[in-house]
């Protein structure tokens, strides 16, 4: 059956020159739905997926992508035009899988009709010469032909074969099994479409976003609470579930000795949340244990430190105050952060530098950090004065994590070197020239919370599970035909058993051996 599409295309191939438009269309359709095209489209799909794994992807890692863009100024615009920074959302990638789906449906639906007819058909008559089949065996017996055939029918039925109804004058039994293989194959291919539908629903109507939440600060689930938000094409902000939540407390289980010292065994957030009119509820949010609110899910995926910093300006007013998110530079959580105080008078003040959870001074006078539980926090920052360029029209550089120092000057200390403020919690440093002062109050934790809505995920899951079931049927149900012929001759009966594996993949010699044995055994009893 698998050969038919190919056979057909070959025939139409030769006449391609003299086709009417309609025939041409039909010819194209047959080409598209042939096994060979499916095969090539599958390989194309594999190939098309490759670039996305080597070129940074905008949606996956925008930071890396912008770095790449900067490093390759000539290539970047070309890549942009080709959609190489968003391979899996690009037109050409979609073209491949949509063609594949069309080909699949065009291939599988017609097969369903063929199959429905075949499933009701009787096993075909025995070929005249069973000896011509590659796998067959014969033996002699004293039993009469009719008796042999009756037994053969019983033996075959017992083994799950469908047996052709007996008719007068038959000298052979025809049997067939493995009808469900085709069902499995159809189920598998149709389920692939189901998976794609579920997947597409997630991409169209869902969203994925992340936010950094400082412990103790309430957050509302609205678009502007997010640091990054990747909405589906048809997602609307109104679809966001209304709720507020607060990370009340956060703990890390540090490994204090043995292998893995300085890393964490795990971390958890104690969260309270409230849906619009609901009552307050609590949840212990951990990695691998998301919280579900309505159709939204919250995931804890990372953490870090937010030193609470207060900047007073030259006039004694508070120009900046609050927990400041520092971004980890590595697994030891040595973190980098910036402070911007544009309202400071007489001059704007900016700070950037490192936060050491556990700081030690090396013998050479360098600062280093010891991984693990924070034991000796230290803030070490450089100071800038002047224009922080916060009003610039192009605000791309105005990420809260980046200080624009192009128009500012670095503040110098009394020794004429660049000033570095090294502060422990509770300490305050006065800035020179009456610029003001900086206080490091204390440290709080922040959590990175990923929030998403993924409609269609159940559909996709059901799809793959069905696909797997279908696949198992398609791969392991061995459709085969068996014939047993009994011919009188030489004073007894010559019995010939032959079998044919319809997939061409199986080895039927053992099947024949077993059948012959079973038939012979029946005779003894």
């Amino acid at each position, binding site marked *: 059956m698998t*050969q038919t599409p*190919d056979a057909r295309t070959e025939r139409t191939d030769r006449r391609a020159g003299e086709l009417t438009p309609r025939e041409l269309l039909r010819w194209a359709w047959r080409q598209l739905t042939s*096994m*060979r095209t*499916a*095969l090539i489209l*599958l*390989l194309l*799909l*594999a190939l098309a*997926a*490759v670039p*996305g*794994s*080597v070129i*940074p*992807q905008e*949606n*996956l*890692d925008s930071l*890396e992508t912008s770095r790449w863009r900067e490093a390759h100024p000539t290539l970047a615009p070309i890549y942009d035009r080709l959609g190489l920074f968003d391979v899996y959302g690009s037109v050409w990638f979609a073209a491949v899988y949509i063609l594949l789906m069309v080909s699949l449906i065009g291939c599988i639906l017609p097969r369903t009709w063929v199959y429905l007819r075949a499933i009701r058909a009787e096993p075909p008559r025995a070929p005249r010469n069973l000896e011509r089949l590659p796998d067959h065996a014969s033996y002699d017996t004293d039993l009469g032909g009719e008796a042999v055939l009756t037994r053969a029918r019983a033996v075959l039925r017992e083994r799950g074969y469908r047996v052709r109804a007996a008719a007068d004058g038959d000298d052979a039994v025809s049997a067939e099994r493995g009808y469900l293989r085709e069902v499995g194959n159809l189920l598998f291919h149709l389920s692939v479409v189901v998976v794609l539908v579920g997947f597409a629903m997630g991409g169209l109507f869902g969203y*994925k976003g992340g936010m950094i939440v400082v412990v103790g600060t309430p957050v509302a689930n609205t678009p502007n609470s997010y640091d990054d938000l990747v909405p589906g094409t048809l997602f609307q902000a109104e679809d966001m579930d209304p709720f507020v939540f607060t990370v009340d407390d956060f703990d890390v289980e540090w*490994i204090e000795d*043995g*292998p*893995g010292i300085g*890393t964490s*065994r*795990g*971390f958890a957030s104690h969260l309270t949340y409230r849906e619009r009119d609901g009552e307050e509820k609590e949840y212990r949010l*951990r*990695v*691998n*244990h*998301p919280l579900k609110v309505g159709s939204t*899910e919250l*995931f804890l*995926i*990372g953490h*870090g430190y937010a030193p609470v910093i207060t900047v007073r300006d030259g006039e004694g007013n508070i120009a900046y105050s609050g927990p400041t998110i520092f*971004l980890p530079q*590595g*697994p030891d959580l040595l973190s980098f952060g910036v402070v911007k105080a544009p309202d400071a008078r007489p001059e704007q003040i900016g700070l950037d530098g490192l936060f050491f959870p556990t700081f030690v001074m090396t013998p050479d006078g360098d600062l280093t950090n010891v991984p693990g539980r924070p034991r000796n926090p230290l803030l070490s920052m450089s100071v800038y004065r002047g224009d922080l360029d916060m009003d610039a029209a192009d605000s791309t550089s105005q990420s809260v994590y980046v200080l624009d120092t192009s128009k500012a000057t670095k503040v110098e200390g009394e020794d004429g070197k660049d000033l570095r403020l090294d502060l422990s919690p509770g300490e305050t440093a006065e800035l020179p020239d009456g610029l003001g002062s900086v206080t490091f109050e204390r440290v709080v934790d922040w959590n*990175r919370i*990923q*929030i*998403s809505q*993924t409609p269609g*995920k159940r559909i*996709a*899951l059901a799809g*793959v*599970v069905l*696909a*797997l079931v279908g696949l*198992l049927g398609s*791969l*392991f149900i061995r459709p085969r035909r068996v014939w047993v012929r009994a011919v009188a001759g030489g004073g007894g009966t010559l019995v010939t058993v032959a079998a044919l594996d319809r997939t061409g*993949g199986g*080895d039927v010699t053992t099947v024949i051996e077993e059948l012959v044995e079973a038939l012979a055994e029946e005779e003894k009893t």
Partner: protein
Amino acid sequence: MSDADWSALSNTAIAVAGGLYFLALVAHLVEWSALAGRRQHETATTEAAEGGGVAVATGPADDLGSGSDREERVARFARIGLAVTVLALVAHLVALVARGLAADPNRVPWGNMYEFTMAGTFVVAAGYVGLYRRFRLAWMAPLVVGLVVTLLMVAVIWLYNPVGPLSDSLNSPWLVIHVVSAVLATGAFTLGGILSATYLVKMRRPVGPIMSRVPELAALDRTAYRIHAFAFPVWTFAVLITGPIWAHQAWSSYWNWDPKEVWAFITWVVYAAYLHARSTAGWKGRNAALLALVGMATLWFNFIGINYFSTTSQHSYADAAAVVERP
């Protein structure tokens, strides 16, 4: 026993296993060289018989002795090779179990690249021993044992990592079920790949002393297919069912197009193409076998190569630095 003892036991056991696999390889090489000698000997005999019209009972004298001696020698070294492989397998198992017991808390022994490689090669070796009779795999012995020795060496030299606790995102029941299926499929695909590679070689050089021992092309193709047909659904289960479920729990989205996922998908698609090729006229046989090898290449590239290629993978087991998510 303390954790450190278990860890030391694991390291010793893996060294022992490696040594035994190597001995098994030597035994099989002796077996095969004797075999090559036998064939030459037979060829010489027939040629002499045909050429001279005189029946020559013994071949040219050589230090391997007479034909039946040689037969015996081949069989003896084949048996020794298999027996030593089984011993190696036991040591290999001890190494895996001890590795799991060395961790605190105890855990499954596949939390990093070193452990994956150890577990994956175990599946290859165990699969070979388990299917030895059923699929008559005697001829595969040097290939499988050689591959396992090589991979174990790579693991011990380059991938070794002291036993540590699992990173938080790995700490999930899905680790067991997802990784068992992935490693199982990887082992099986690798066995299948060896068969397909042999198929291609035999296609080019169908005769010769060594090749005559290798099964017929049709049988190679069929066995390769059956192993791939086993591995494919297991792989489907690993990367398209349990993987996404776990990814959803750990990272909030069941499919991220993360490089590991992309390559797992590529592998899946290539093997789907292989299965199609086997039932498409013009693609059967040679092209299908080639596709199986492409599939195996993508599989191993994903397993090892992608960790060095890509910085964005969230699959952090290869690299402790990735434990902290970049915001």
